[in-house]
């Protein structure tokens, strides 16, 4: 099967994608950006008298 140029092109595209996903994760979704919700916060969110 044709693995030469196609394999190279797919590898480059996958590399680009992996890099982009890592950058996106670090910039917007990493542990620093993650919100931890506790049962108390959930109860507060449902019963809070001010809109969230």
């Amino acid at each position, binding site marked *: 099967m044709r693995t030469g140029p196609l394999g190279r092109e*797919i590898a480059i595209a996958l590399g680009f994608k992996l890099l982009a996903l890592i950058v996106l994760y670090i910039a917007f979704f990493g542990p620093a950006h*993650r919100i*931890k*919700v506790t*049962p108390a916060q*959930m109860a507060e969110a449902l019963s809070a008298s001010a*809109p969230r």
Partner: protein
Amino acid sequence: MFEFDVVTLSRLQFALTAMYHFLFVPLTLGLALLLAIMESVYVMTGRTVWREATQFWGTLFGINFAMGVATGVTMEFQFGTNWAYYSHYVGDIFGAPLAIEGLMAFFLEATFVGLFFFGWKRLSKVQHLVVTWLVALGANFSALWILVANAWMQNPVGAAFNPQTMRMELTSFSEVLFNPVAQSKFVHTVSAGYVTGAMFVMSIAAYFILNRRHVDIARRSLTVAASFGLASALSVVVLGDESGYTAGENQKMKIAAIEAMWETEPPPASFTLFGIPDLKSETTKYEIKIPWVLGLIATRSLDKPVEGVKALVERSEERIRNGMAGYQWLAKEGGRPNAAVPPELDASMRDVGHSLLVKRIRPDIENATDAQIHEAALSTIPDVPVLFWSFRIMVALGFYFIALFAAAFYLSSRRRCGKRWFLRMTMYSLPLPWVAAELGWIVAEYGRQPWIIDGTMPTFLGVSNIPASNVAASLAAFVLFYSALAIIDVALIVKYVRIGPREEADPQASGAPVFPAPAPAQNQ
């Protein structure tokens, strides 16, 4: 109009990533099975033309798989940041099928995709065929678990609310797995994927035949895709009807909105083939109705009414009022280590989700006026025109696919597939299965609004306390990322379609064409 708050932006971001991801999924589902069928013919007949066909479509499958893989991961990123309250509330249930999908199906699929590409010279014919079938099986398993998770949002079964942890917890995994919505959704969605795969193969085969290139492989591929596509297109419609029935049982408002049916339809309920929904007058103008059909789809009967939007809003009002007592108890006791719902509040607790709809209008919902409760009940109506038209275009496309595949099947069985009008029509039909699939998801997900979990949790309560600017920034980054990927994907597929399959002389080929290639066009 849209208000670009954190709720709208989070929804927009999730919708964008889901719809983009679903550009790849149906083609993977359909092509994987077509590869398995073509390779089975190769193993059974020993004809190299079938191996070449499998390898060529396998190359395009590989590009689509490589570009599509992990595009869905970004949705899972969003659960922890944009949808933290949702994740806390239902993570126990929703996370399980997603984890199973990642561990079992995805690894099965990804491992065997590697063997498919690199195993042609290392495995025996039969071993490679087994690998190809396992790729197809893995792809379908992936879809199953994702759809089990999604179906739970449409029909939350097998779970109970725990007031101590303030979350829904799993009570029966088998109920979640055998959720009727999941079953009907799975078969409908994978069939739509098979239609996409068949149309992809048929369109590119038509392109080759029109250009008198690789005609031997193209005509065989077209014949396989025509019969596979016809069976799949018929299945999509029949199984879509089952999805309609489950929605008629569990999501009556969605059905009413799809039908733009303001008043309850007396039995035998008729189906609106065409009309123009008018939100102001709450009527549908210029209606063309087909008697009995809606009754059969939504209730499987001719003697049951199908409730309209107005009746369902009244029902929502009742449920909002009924849930108030449960809400007040939850506001006081929820989250405490020893909290236990008093038995007399069981019925009210089932409607707390509806009471929470009032929170969008006023925070102290126990003091809501009748007008505010009515306003909250009105918010249970999804966007009627969007659902009405999305559904009708999707269904019309479904019937078009049946007609096109039936014509292809008839013509190829008579060895007359070389007709230019047919080949052109087939080639230009290439994007239509994607249009139908995306519209299907719009009907399913936009039609679930205002709920993130139907009847249990309103969407606006699922989002995190984060600034809208954060979501806007990541949304912009996603648009850039996905646009770049889309360009690379299309460019690679077009490039390798142009290169075409690598053909060797087939010593066993009869040499007689299955059907003649068209004569060259005069004006090209």
